[in-house]
Each structure stands twice: as structure tokens, then as C-alpha cells.
């Protein structure tokens, strides 16, 4: 859920999605869902000769399970906020499990 929320804050930003087959697609993030499937608009492909089929495609839906990396500008991300959210999440998990909370 955390990264789903994170990607929701990234909508309308330009990101680069690297797939597991090395295909890199740069575009504007339009939508994301709970499976981290990504919808990109205005795409460009990094190595178009290797992937000629993408030439006439301007926007696409990418299945979350085939993504290796998502690259974005450092300015798009507030890492402190993310760290806090992560720690809060971990905190709640431990409380619910009845574990020692540090």
C-alpha cells in the first residue's frame, strides 16, 4: 500500500520505467493501481531501434509484474516522508503482532 500511495503522489510527473526485458519507457505517469500497474502518456522509448514495435505508440499501460525499476527525478521524492511512512508501517505491524517495539 505504501508504494501505491507514493505513486499516486507522483502522477503528472515524468518517470522512466525499465522493464525486465531491458526496455526503457519514459513518459508522464497518468495512473497507478494497487498492483503497481502503470499508465504512461506521451511516451518515448530509450533504444527505439531495438524495439521498433513501439514507434507508433504514444501512451501505454504497463503491467506491474514486468517492471524492474522506476526512475524519477530526485526532486519528485520526499525521502524523509517515505522513511517516516515506512517506519510507521513497521511500527504498526510490530504492535499488532505483539512484538517488542523499539
Amino acid at each position, binding site marked *: 500500500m505504501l508504494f*501505491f500511495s507514493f505513486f*499516486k503522489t507522483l502522477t503528472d510527473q515524468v518517470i522512466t520505467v525499465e*522493464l*525486465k*526485458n531491458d526496455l526503457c519507457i519514459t513518459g508522464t505517469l*497518468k*495512473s*497507478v*493501481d*494497487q*498492483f503497481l*500497474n502503470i*499508465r504512461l502518456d506521451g*511516451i518515448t522509448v530509450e533504444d527505439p531501434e531495438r524495439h*521498433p*514495435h*513501439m*514507434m*507508433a*505508440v*504514444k*501512451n*501505454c*499501460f*504497463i*503491467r506491474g*509484474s*514486468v517492471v524492474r525499476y522506476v526512475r524519477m527525478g530526485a526532486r519528485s521524492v520526499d525521502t524523509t516522508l517515505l522513511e517516516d511512512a515506512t517506519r510507521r508501517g513497521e511500527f504498526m505491524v510490530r504492535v499488532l503482532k505483539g512484538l517488542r517495539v523499539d
Partner: protein
Amino acid sequence: MEALIPFTTSGSLVDLVDKKVLVILRDGRKIIGVFRSYDQFANFLMESVVERLYHKMEYADRDIGILLVRGENVVAVGEIDLIAEDLIPLREISVENIMTRITEDNTKRDKDQIIKENVLREYGFVSEGREGDAY
């Protein structure tokens, strides 16, 4: 004020309906057709489907008809811009021609792959074989 489209799979796919799309499957196939419908698992129903085989700057189309694709086999779906499509520099050739060129490439690649796998096996690496993804 723009309507708030929910952040769901449906929300992402609804504006692709009745558009010409390119679907990339996990086995590496590129499928072009009219996107008719989908469900919560991203299973797709497509009409007037062709499989487009690419080789360098050439391509060939193979008729398929109606296709019902199971969602987990999809890598990506792209909306084809009909204007940009006319401008692409690829040349269409027949299926037989492209198949000969593709099989030539594949036999060469398989030979190299066998040599590579033999070396990697010495180091303990095992390949997935046919069951793996080919996209």
C-alpha cells in the same frame, strides 16, 4: 474540473476501449487489434487481431481474428497513434520471407546460447528453458 478517475486497473484501461492497440505478451509476441473489453484481472478481449512479426526494419502480419488473452501473460498495452503509424519507416513484407529471416537469426542465437549455457553451468547457473519469459 476533470472527473476524478479512480486509481484502479479499470480506471487505467477504460479509455483504451475500442482503440487500436499493440499488446506485448510475455512470450515476446506483438499483437495488434481493436481493444474491446477487459475485466478486473486485466484479461483482454480483442477483435480484428493480427500478430505482427518484426525483423530489423521489416514486418509481416499474420491474421488471428478474435483473441481472449489471459491478463497475466501481458507485458504492456499501448494505444497506437493512427497518424504516427503511417509515418513509421518499417517496410511490410510477406510472412514467409520474414519467417526465414527470423529462423536464421534464431538458429544462430540458439547456437551461441548453448555455448554460453555450457560455460555458465560450470559456475552453477541454470537457465529456465522454454517455460521462461521471452519478451
